């Protein structure tokens, strides 16, 4: 298990069913974290690391703002038809500081696992081929810092984070796999957002990335 510290100056993790007022989750869902890590290591096959477990924890307290923005929808296939555009409110989070918790123990071990690739990318960035800005949220929500927390056992005892962890009786459902086209194949897990000491996390509490 590794921790990846990430800072994102401005971001939004849009709730899946938000259509008119674009609400944000307080932290990125597991599917978003997985996509971010794939982008970091330059992996284009989203099925390459199925079976890894990943979740996000907040180190900073997120601050929400609301802006008015142009929102696109498809009413007319002609690009930029007037009916495809509408103004709408969007929630933004600023000055986010996160820890992404990643465990690759249940991945296919015959090939390099995601945790190894993330560590290697950050240690030897010259050896990784990747493209595009590294974003968490929308594409313009560029991250600023990424670094690996190498030794979890050496973390200070008081390092706590507010994280999404699996809980069958929890009140949150967040996606672990997103169907970007029809949403019928989007897969959710149930959990709670709780403040925990990072030293006490167990693998079973972290959502697993599995397609339907």
């Amino acid at each position, binding site marked *: 298990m590794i921790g990846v510290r990430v800072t994102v*100056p*401005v971001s939004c993790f849009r709730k899946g069913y938000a259509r008119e007022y674009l609400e944000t989750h307080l932290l990125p869902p597991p599917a978003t974290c997985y996509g971010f890590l794939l982008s*970091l290591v*330059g992996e284009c096959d989203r099925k390459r690391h199925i079976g890894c477990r990943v979740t996000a924890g907040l180190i900073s307290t997120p*601050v*929400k*703002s609301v*802006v*008015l*923005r*142009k929102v*696109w929808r*498809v009413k007319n*296939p002609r*690009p*930029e038809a007037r009916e495809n555009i509408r*103004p709408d409110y969007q929630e*933004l989070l*600023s*000055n986010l500081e996160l820890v992404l918790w990643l465990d690759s123990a249940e991945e296919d071990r015959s090939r390099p696992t995601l945790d190894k690739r993330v560590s290697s*990318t*950050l240690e030897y*960035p*010259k*050896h*990784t*081929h*990747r*493209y*595009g*800005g*590294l*974003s968490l949220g929308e*594409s*313009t*929500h*560029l*991250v*600023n*810092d*990424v*670094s690996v927390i190498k030794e979890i056992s050496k973390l200070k005892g008081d390092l706590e984070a507010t994280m999404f962890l699996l809980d069958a009786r929890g009140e949150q459902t967040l996606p672990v796999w997103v*169907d*970007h*086209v*029809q949403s019928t*194949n989007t897969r959710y897990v149930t959990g709670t957002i709780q403040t925990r000491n990072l030293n006490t996390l167990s693998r079973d509490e972290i959502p697993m990335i599995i397609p339907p």
Partner: protein
Amino acid sequence: MSLHVYANFVTPYGTAANNRAETDGNITTLQKILWLGHPHSTVSAEAIRFSLRRRLADLEDSGTNRRWNETERTNSWEDPEFRGWDTDSGKTYIDDDLLGYMRAEAAKTEGTTSTKVRRAVLELTRAVSLTPWNGDVTFNAASPGATPAAVRGKDKFKHPVPYGCEVHATRYQYGMSLTPESLREKSRAASAIDALCHLGTVAGNQGRFLYDFSPDAVVFRLTHDPAPRILYCFESNDHGKTVSVDQLLARLDSGDIQIEELIGGVSDFESPLYQQLKNRGLETMGVKAACASVLDRMSKLIGIEAQP
């Protein structure tokens, strides 16, 4: 390996009424976000992209795929189906190459690849004001008859229409990320960086606030590191009059960033910022010279034409 070019730009000091939010009564409002605990005015990345595309349309011999038509208030397209991308030798446009595109009806099922979607190779961030917004509002009166929709009754052409306008005297900073090797034509990276160094107006409130987004100062970073680590690195301790980069220097001290990766550009060699960068041993020059230096370094690293 993948070479990344990152930049953080800061604009000159000016009075902004950019990229308005929803009008509140007869007050024309600014977009604001909470930033480090205080409300700061902000301009979206989309507004900056729009301005960049317009500049590229003027500069490029072959133009851009979409071009804003001021009369129709919509885009005129050269290749709305993006057919140029169907083959390796097809004619493509610089704006699609840099900023990406998507035809929403292209993907019918998950997992199928499509030539109608391309991710941006150049990403820009939201611009955030360098100083908090203190609540400045100007009082204005539109001339009699200038805004007939705002007045009712038979006297609608007789009286001026009073209104307020939120304004912010400040600088804006925003970031950029570019992976030049991912472009169909790598030389377009140089055009993009050059256009950003001469951006001109972004957003604005009709003709009254032509806020200049051409950088007053810029920090470039050329690196293989996937994280920029220089976004929003500018700050001001004197309400925006001058700019400093204390965070950036702390990053250099911690070893997160190597000094050889950085190039600084300033418009004033008498400024405290220039002294701060120079004293730290960072290669610093004028903004245009910094732009040329980045293009030169980039061309050597990946073998592209230095000049746009």
